[in-house]
């Protein structure tokens, strides 16, 4: 846990999660990146579009018998709607991602040093790709735009422009996504999950529900 002050406005700021590299100042909307003990303001947080996810920062849950809490998120928008990538901070210090799109959920983890992935212009729906020894099929190729970030992230991520995401699925409910916003592209691998299986607590309250 690192407690310090926002380099922009001086307000108290915390990095609760040990692996967090970036967070947002809740007072002045600055995006702050941490270099050891020094903090640097890198951008301004844009207006996050209003969303209807029942998950919020500080929501807690369990995945694969490991407890986590939601430390931050990245928001994306595309022609067909929007979705959240919630940063799950696990008790053992690892990070995972909960993809939340129209109330369909998937938990995935970054794959370090993935085998060479097809380039963005060379990947199409229906194509078979082998991800970590699982045969998967490309289900969507989405051109999206970054719509904001909030809370703590385990890497630096802000102000991305046009991004391409490729989702892959398998017969055994495996899920993978390739994020072409970086070079080499980032690979995340996990599975589709039922809302109930995460045993989420401290969810957002909806009036009338």
């Amino acid at each position, binding site marked *: 846990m690192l407690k310090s002050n926002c380099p922009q406005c001086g307000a108290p700021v915390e990095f609760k999660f040990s692996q967090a590299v970036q967070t947002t100042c809740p007072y002045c909307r600055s995006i702050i990146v941490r270099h050891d003990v020094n903090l640097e303001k890198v951008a301004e947080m844009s207006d996050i579009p209003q969303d209807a996810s029942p998950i919020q920062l500080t929501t807690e849950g369990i995945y694969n018998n490991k407890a986590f809490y939601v430390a931050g998120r990245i928001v994306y928008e595309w022609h067909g709607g929007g979705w959240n990538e919630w940063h799950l901070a696990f008790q053992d210090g690892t990070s995972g991602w909960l993809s939340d799109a129209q109330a369909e959920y998937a938990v995935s983890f970054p794959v370090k040093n993935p085998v060479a992935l097809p380039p963005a212009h060379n990947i199409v729906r*229906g194509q078979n790709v082998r991800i970590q020894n699982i045969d998967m099929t490309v289900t969507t190729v989405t051109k999206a735009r970054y719509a904001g970030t909030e809370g703590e992230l385990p890497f630096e991520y802000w102000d991305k422009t046009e991004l391409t995401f490729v989702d892959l699925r398998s017969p055994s409910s495996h899920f993978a996504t390739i994020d072409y916003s970086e070079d080499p592209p980032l690979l995340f691998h996990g599975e589709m999950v039922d809302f109930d299986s995460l045993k989420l607590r401290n969810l957002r309250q909806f009036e009338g529900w």
Partner: protein
Amino acid sequence: MAAKAAPPQVRSLTCPNCGGAIELRGMAHTLNAVCVQCLSIIDTKSETLQIVQKFKAKERIQPLIPLGTRGKLHGDPYEVIGFQVRTITVDGTDYSWHEYLLFNPYKGFRYLSFYSGHWNDIKPLKGLPVITESGGRKAVNWLNTTYKHFQNATARTTYVMGEFPYQVRVGDEAAVDDYIAPPYMLSSETIPGEVTWSLGEYKTGADIWKAFNLPGSPPPAVGAYANEPSPHTGSAAKWFSIAVALWTLTFVLLVATALFSSNEKIFSTLYTYSENTPGEHSFVTPIFEVKGRPSNVEIELGTNLHQNWAYFNMALINEQTGQAWDFGREVSYYSGSDWSEGSASDTVRVPSVPAGRYYLRIEPEMDDHPTDFYTTGPRNVTYSVTIRRDVPTYWPFVIAFLLIPVPAIIAVIRSWAFEHVRWQESDYATTSGDSGDDDE
């Protein structure tokens, strides 16, 4: 740490085209909403509430479950927030069905489809089914169940109401493939850039009316639907294996009967009768003994009648108890060059005769002046009386063998008839003309 988000309110919008009120229940998920007054589709996320489509409809279609109705499915509450009519054209005829979009802020979205009184409860699939084949036709496998291909068609959206978390336009087309494993159905929808799989479970109108507490009665189901579970339980194999087991039991009892029936001869004597001999013609046989458990007593008359008939009044009498069985037997036998009628012998079985000492009282009769053309034999008859007890009777076993398979055959025929009606709606109908286009 970010502040907790404020609970969202259910919003109301004013239609930019006609000023009508549009109520939004899908919260921030909603991307497109329809003004039902002027049939405009609005982009709810645009600042200016941009109208993305204005469509026409010959008539306003009323959803069976009104928008905003809440119901309980799988223990969770869901609210109807969107409604679509989708149409396919097969052999020049349009077939339309309804789709209801249901929303729960925690559990997400599901769908209900409605067609001709048949309902389906549909959820997007978490994984990808494996393409396979079954019986020479396309199929998919999901969670160890094989779903047989039922229909391929191009579905176009012809009417929308309410709100959706994605883009909708009247005229949107998708290639739909349905695969069935009643009561379940897997459907794939393909639009450029995306394939979506969903799993539907058949529901009756009564199920839906109960879940949503709707008034009145649901529309009755017409015909058989793709994934409608068959009302006839049990596979053909199961019925026929029961039939075989019953046959086996019958055969075992038949063999037991054949082996354990005593078929014991207890009396055999020859007698003569002459119509013209004067005096009393009735007589009694010597006493014979019937032993063992109460069983039948068989009396066989073997006569020398030809072109003749005789009638035998008989009574089997228990010498000690006075119990008697009284009956009459007619024996007649006629023949010509290429025909014959009747038989010169006769067998009768007296039922459930208890052990004891018995005799037979016999009184034969013949016509003393027969007036018919055919009775030309002499006015006398010589006949043997042979008595046996515990004689096996086989015809009840024959009846059992014949009747045993009947319910199985009927059940299997009815089951096949239902399946035939079901598959008549598919791309694989066997009557003249196909009922589906194959896009591939």
